[in-house]
C-alpha cells in the first residue's frame, strides 16, 4: 500500500503511479499524471519496492519543485546527500523537546493573546476571500527577522512552502511575498496547483515536511512550513476515498481523515539534543465559514491551537481580522512570562479576554435596551470592546514589537477602573496601570 510504481508505456515513456488498494486478485494503481494513451494490454508496471522518496541535500534551499518532488525551476535535479521516504515516522514523545521559544509574528492578536512558539503547529482558519495570505506573509516577514533580545539568539531560518490546489495567481503572490520579505534564498517550494493531479496533492505536504525535517534536524534550521490550502488537500483525500468505494464518513469525508491529518500535523516540533525546529502554519478555508465543518474541526483537534479569521471584522475594515475568542495557542504558556516575554503577559492576556468577551455580550444587550439601558460600568466595558477591536486587533499591516503590543493592551485597560482588573496580579497592576 502506498508503494510507488512506474507505468511503462509501449513507446518507451514512463509515468508514475501509486498503489492505493489491493486484494487477492487485483491491485489498484492510481496514475499520478494523465491516464490517456495507456492501453491495458501493452502497458507494463514496474514496482519500485518503496513508497515515494525524496532526494535531500542542503542545495534544496532556493529551489522550486512540483507536487511530486521534481524540479520545475529549470535547474538540474538535486544531487542527493541522502534519500528519505516521505511518509515520515512518529517522533518518540520521550525524544521530543518541549517547545518554549517565543516566535514573534508582529501581530498583537497573536503575540499578545495567542503566542506562537517554535515547534508549534498553529493553523489559520480562514474563509473564502479573507486575507489569510497577507497575514501569513506578515508572520513570515517578522519571524524571519529574528527576535529582539528575547529567547535564544536567532539561528538559521528557512521557509518550506507547499501549495496545495491553489491557483497559479495565488501561488505567485505568496512567492512574491517571500521575495519581498527577503526569504527567497532560504525558501523551498513545492507546487501542486489547482490543475495538477489530485492524488499528487496527497503527497505534496509530505514532500514538504520531509524536506523541513531534514533541514531542521540534520542541519539545525528553524523551519517554518506553510501549507495552503489544507481544504483542497482534504477534498483530494475524499476524492480518492470515493474512487476506492470506501464507506464515507461525516459529509462524505473518509472516517480516517483524523488519522491522515495527524500524520501531517504531528510532524512539527523539536527534538532533544538537536538544534532546529519545525513550526507549521497551515492555512485552511472553512467551507461556508463553518468552524464545525469536519475539516476545521478535525484540524483543531490535532493542531496546537488555531487563529480564526472573522468575516464580521473584515467587513468592519479591521485588519488583521482575527477573532480572538475562538482563537487559541495551546503552547502560549510555554513561551511567555519573565525571562521570555514579560512578567505581566499572562495576566494581561486573561484580562483583555475577559473584558472583551463581556463587552461583546453587552453589545447585544445594548441593541435591545439602548445605551441608556446600560449601567455606567457596562457602558465602559462596551466602549472597551470597540476600542479593543479598533486599536489592539486592527493594527494594520505593520508589525509591532512585543513591548508595543503589551503597552497597547494596558492603554486599553486604562478605560476601566483599576480594581476591576482582578485577573492581573496586584503588583503588575500597580506597576503597569499608572495613575
Amino acid at each position, binding site marked *: 500500500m502506498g508503494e510507488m510504481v512506474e507505468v511503462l508505456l509501449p513507446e518507451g515513456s514512463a509515468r508514475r503511479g501509486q498503489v492505493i488498494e489491493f486484494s487477492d486478485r487485483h491491485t489498484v494503481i492510481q496514475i499520478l499524471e494523465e491516464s490517456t494513451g495507456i492501453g491495458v494490454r501493452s502497458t507494463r508496471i514496474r514496482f519500485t519496492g518503496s513508497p515515494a522518496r525524496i532526494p535531500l541535500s542542503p542545495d534544496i534551499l532556493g529551489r522550486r519543485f512540483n507536487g511530486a518532488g521534481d524540479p520545475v525551476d529549470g535547474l538540474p535535479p538535486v544531487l542527493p546527500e541522502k534519500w528519505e521516504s516521505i511518509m515520515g*515516522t512518529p517522533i518518540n514523545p520521550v525524544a521530543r523537546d518541549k517547545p518554549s521559544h517565543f516566535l514573534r509574528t508582529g501581530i498583537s492578536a497573536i503575540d499578545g493573546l495567542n503566542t506562537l512558539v517554535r515547534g508549534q503547529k498553529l493553523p489559520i482558519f480562514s474563509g473564502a476571500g479573507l486575507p489569510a495570505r497577507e497575514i501569513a506573509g506578515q508572520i513570515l516577514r517578522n519571524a524571519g527577522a529574528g527576535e529582539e533580545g528575547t529567547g535564544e539568539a536567532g539561528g538559521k531560518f528557512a521557509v518550506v512552502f507547499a501549495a496545495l490546489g491553489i491557483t497559479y495567481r495565488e501561488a505567485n503572490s505568496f512567492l512574491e511575498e517571500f521575495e519581498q520579505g527577503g526569504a527567497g534564498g532560504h525558501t523551498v517550494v513545492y507546487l501542486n496547483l489547482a490543475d495538477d493531479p489530485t492524488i499528487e496533492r496527497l503527497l505534496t505536504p509530505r514532500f514538504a515536511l520531509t524536506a523541513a525535517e531534514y533541514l531542521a534536524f540534520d542541519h539545525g534550521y528553524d523551519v517554518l512550513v506553510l501549507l495552503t490550502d489544507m481544504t483542497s488537500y482534504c477534498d483530494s483525500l475524499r476524492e480518492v476515498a470515493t474512487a476506492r468505494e470506501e*464507506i464515507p464518513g461525516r459529509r462524505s469525508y473518509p472516517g480516517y481523515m483524523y488519522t491522515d491529518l495527524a500524520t501531517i500535523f504531528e510532524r512539527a516540533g523539536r527534538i532533544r539534543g538537536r538544534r532546529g525546529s519545525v513550526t507549521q502554519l497551515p492555512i485552511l478555508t472553512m467551507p461556508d465559514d463553518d468552524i464545525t465543518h*469536519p475539516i476545521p474541526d478535525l484540524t483543531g483537534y490535532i493542531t496546537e491551537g488555531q487563529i480564526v479569521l472573522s468575516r464580521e471584522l473584515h467587513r468592519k475594515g479591521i485588519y488583521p481580522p482575527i477573532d480572538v475568542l475562538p482563537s487559541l495557542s495551546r503552547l502560549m504558556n510555554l513561551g511567555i512570562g519573565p525571562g521570555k516575554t514579560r512578567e505581566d503577559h499572562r495576566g494581561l492576556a486573561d484580562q483583555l479576554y475577559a473584558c472583551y468577551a463581556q463587552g461583546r455580550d453587552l453589545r447585544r444587550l445594548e441593541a435591545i435596551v439602548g445605551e441608556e439601558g446600560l449601567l455606567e460600568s457596562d457602558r465602559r466595558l462596551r466602549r472597551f470592546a470597540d476600542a479593543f477591536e479598533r486599536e489592539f486587533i486592527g493594527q494594520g499591516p505593520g508589525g509591532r514589537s512585543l513591548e508595543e503590543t503589551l503597552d497597547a493592551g494596558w492603554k486599553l485597560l486604562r478605560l476601566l477602573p483599576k*480594581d476591576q482588573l482582578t485577573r492581573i496580579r496586584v503588583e503588575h497592576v500597580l506597576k503597569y496601570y499608572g495613575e
Partner: protein
Amino acid sequence: MGPFIRAWKEMYGLDYTKRWNFTPAIKPGDELQFGKVIGQVQEGAFTHYILCGSERGKVVGVASGSVSLDEPFGELESGLEIPGCHEWPVRMPRPYKKKFAPSTPLVTGQRIIDFLFPLARGGAAIIPGGFGTGKTIFEQSVAKFADVDIVVYVGCGERGNEMTEVLTDFPELEDPCTGRPLMERTVLVVNTSNMPVAAREASVYTGITIAEYYRDMGYRVALMADSISRWAEALREISSRLEEMPGEEGYPTYLATRLAGFYERGGRVVCLGDGGREGTVTIVSAVSPPGGDFSEPVTQSSQRIAGVLWALDPDLAHRRHFPAVDWRKSYSLYAGTVDEWFRDHVSAEWPALRGEMMGLLQREEELQEIVQLVGIESLQDQERIVLLVSGMLREDFLRQSAFSENDAASHPEKTYYMLKAILSFHSLCRELLGKGIPVEKVLALPFREELGRMKELPAEGFREEALALIGRIEAEGRAGP
C-alpha cells in the same frame, strides 16, 4: 532507540536484570492461588506487592533479599518455580472477589468538581467537549492533584507534545499525598495520533489492565483516558477495513457493548487473595465529539454508563473561563453518596451550601433572561444583588486556573471557606438593603476585589485569612450605615 519510532522494533516492558530487595509474605506450606500476595519490593516510595499469577499448589521454597525477575521468587511442590511477574491478556478483565458501590469521593482539587459534581472512588466520569475546551488540561490537573495512589494516564490518539509535557513536568512536581516526585505514582501509556490505529485501539485496554493490576494490590487507582473517542475511531477504522456492516456514524454496531465493557472494568472491589484488601479503579475519560455535538454515539453511549458528566462549553472556553464546565448541563450521580464524607471531613454544611449555590446560579439565569428583554433597571434591588453575587460565584469561585501557582489545586477546606466568604457577603448585602440602604451604595461596597483575589492566597494560613475576612464582612453588617 533514537528520536523516531521505527517499525519492527521489539522492546520488553520489564527489566529482567534489575535487582530488587524482596521481602516474602509466604512461607513453605502455604497454598498459592491467583492474586495472592507472595511478597513485596520497594519501588521508590511505592511498595510493589508481588502478586501470584496462574501458579497453583503448595509452596516448598521462598526467596528473600536480592532477586531479579529472571530468577525464581520461590518453588512449588510440583517442582515449578514461582515467578516474580506474570502476563495477562489485556482484553480480559482481571478477576476480583466482590464488587461494591462507591462511597468515598475522589477529591480532585478542582472546585467545580469537588463541590458541585463530585466523583466517587471506583466511579466513572466522562468529560466531553469540542477542541480547545480544556479536556486535556483537566485530565492532567486531576492526574496531578487527585488523592489516589496510582495514576494511569492513557494518551490515546492525541498530541505528541502533550505527552512530552507530562514526561517533563511530572518528575518535577510533587505527589500531593506523599511529597515524592509525581512521576513515581504515574504510569503513561502513549499512543499519539500519528501512531498506528491498531495500537491505539489496544492502548486503553493496556491502560485499564495496568490499573487493575495495581488495584489488585489494594491501591486506589485513577485511570485517565484522553481521549476515548480516538479509541472508538480506531475501532471504526479497523471495523471498516474488515468490511463489517457499519452502524450509526459508521461505528460498528457493537460500539456501545465494547464501551460498556471498558467502563465496567472500573469499580471498587475486594481483591482476590487473603486479607480482604480493597482496591479501586476510577475512570475519567475525555470525549471528543465531532463539531462539539454531544448527540453523537460515543458521547451518548459513554453517558449512559458513567455516573458523572462534566460537560465542557465552548462559550466559556472562548471567554477563558476555565475549567469550562457547564454547570447547567453537568451532573453527578454520586453527590448524595459522597456527601457524608464531606460532612465528616470538611463541614456539616457542605450539602446545604451546594444547594444554595445551585439555587443562585439558577436564579441568575432567569434574571438574565429578563435583563436581555427589558434591561437591568427593571429588576428589584434584591435581584440586582443576586446578579452581583452569582457573578462573583462564577468568576471568583468556579473559575480556577490550572496555571496559577496557588490555585491550580484547591483543598476542600479552601473550597469551603471561599464559598463561605462569598455567601457571607451576600448576607451582608441583603441585610443592608433590609436596613433601607440604597442599592447603589450596597453595590459599591468594598470587599469585592478582596473576595476576587482570595483564591490566590497561599494554602498555608488560608483558613485564618478567610476567617478574618468573613469576620470583617460580618462586622460591617453590625456597624450598619
